[in-house]
C-alpha cells in the first residue's frame, strides 16, 4: 500500500487562547499544507467545545528549543538564589500584609 499522505504536509504547533484576557497556550500539533489550512484544522481538532476564542499556528520547524542536556546549566543557578523570592524576607507581624 502506498500512502504518500502527509509527508509533504509540514507539522504545525497549535496555541489556543481559551478566553479573552488569557494567554495563548500550547495545546498540540497537526499536519497541514499551509497556514490557512492549519488554522481551519486546528479549529476542528482543538476547539469543538468552545475551548478557544483565538488560535495561533506556528510551523514546528520555526521553534528553537533549549537542549535538555543544558537543563542544569540553564536552570540550576536559580536554585540557590532564594533571596529572589518574597518569602526570603522576614517582616514583623505588626506590619501586616506586604
Amino acid at each position: 500500500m502506498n500512502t504518500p499522505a502527509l509527508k509533504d504536509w509540514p507539522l504545525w504547533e497549535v496555541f489556543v487562547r481559551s478566553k479573552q484576557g488569557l494567554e495563548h497556550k500550547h495545546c498540540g500539533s497537526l499536519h497541514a499544507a499551509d497556514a490557512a489550512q492549519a488554522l481551519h484544522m486546528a479549529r476542528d481538532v482543538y476547539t469543538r467545545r468552545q475551548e478557544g476564542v483565538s488560535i495561533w499556528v506556528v510551523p514546528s520547524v520555526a521553534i528553537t528549543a533549549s537542549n535538555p542536556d543544558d537543563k542544569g546549566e540553564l536552570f540550576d543557578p536559580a536554585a540557590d538564589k532564594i533571596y529572589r523570592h518574597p518569602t526570603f524576607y522576614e517582616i514583623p507581624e505588626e506590619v501586616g500584609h506586604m
Partner: protein
Amino acid sequence: MYTQAMDIPDESGKKLAAVSNAPSDQEAAFEARIDADGRIEPQDWMPEAYRKTLVRQISQHAHSEIVGMLPEGNWISRAPSLKRKAILIAKVQDEGGHGLYLYSAAETLGTSRDQMLEGLHSGKAKYSSIFNYPTLNWADVGVIGWLVDGAAIMNQVPLCRCSYGPYARAMVRVCKEESFHQRQGYEALLVMMKGTEEQRAMVQDAVNRYWWKCLAMFGPPDADSPHSAQGMRWGIKRISNDDLRQKFIDATVPQAKVLGVTLPDPELKWNEARGHYDYGQIDWAEFWNTVEGNGPCNKERLATRVKAHNDGQWVRDAAQAYARKQKERALKEAA
C-alpha cells in the same frame, strides 16, 4: 474509544529486545526520573525499548480511534432522529480528533504519520478488536457508547498519569470528551427501554452480543501479559488488565440494573469477601482469533479505511498544490 492492544504484539514489537548502548548515566537518570514518578518529554534520553513500546501502544491506540469511527459511522445516515444523528456525528468527529491527538503524540517519538498509516493499512499494526464486530441495529450504537466507551474510560483515566508527557496530555484531552460518549449511549438505551417490547429486546440482544467482547477489551489476564510488568515499571501502564476489568464490571452491574437489562453471565454475582463481582470465563480463543485478523469484520474495516484514505488523496494533493502556488505567488510579488 481505546485500544486493548497494550499487550498485543505486532511487527513493531519484534525488535523490542534491542539493548541500548547509551551511556549508563543517561539510563540511570531516566530510571531515577521514572522512580520519582517524573515525566519524560520528547527531547529527553530514553531507552530504545521504552520508545518502541510507546510508539506501538500510542499508534495502536490512534488506529483504534480511527477504525472506531467505522462501526458507528454506518449508523449516521440511519439514526432514528435528527437529534440522535447530530449527537452521533459529534461523537464520530470526536473519535477522529482523538486519533489525531494520539498520532501527534506518537510522532514526537520520531515515527512519522506515514509510517503509522502504512502500518495500519498494510495490516501490520493492530487496533482494538472490538471494532471487528458488526453493528447490527440501532441499539448497538447505544451499547457501544455505554459499554465500549465505558471500558475505554476505565482504561484511559490512568493513562492520563502515563510517564510519557505528550501521551498523558493527549489522554487528558480525550478523557474530557469521552464522558459525553458514554452518557449519550446510556441515555439512548434508556429511551429505547421505555419503548416497545421489541425495542427492549433489541437492547438486550445488543448487550448480549457486546458484553463479553467488552470484557476482552482490557486485554489478556495478567498472568498472560508479558509486556505488562515492564509497562508498569516504566509508568506507561498504571493499573493491570485484570484490575481494570474488575473495576469496569463493578461499575457496570448497577448501571445494567437501572437500565433494566441482564448481563449474559450466569456466574456474575457479588462476592462479599472480595468486595467485587465474580464473573465467568472469557473466550480468549475467540479474542486472539479476531486479533489475528479473522473476526467477522476485520477485512471489511480495513478495506473501508484504505478506500477512504485513497479516495481522499486528491484532496491532499490539491491542498498541497494550492499551498505551493500561493507561496510562489507571494515570492513573485515580493520580487
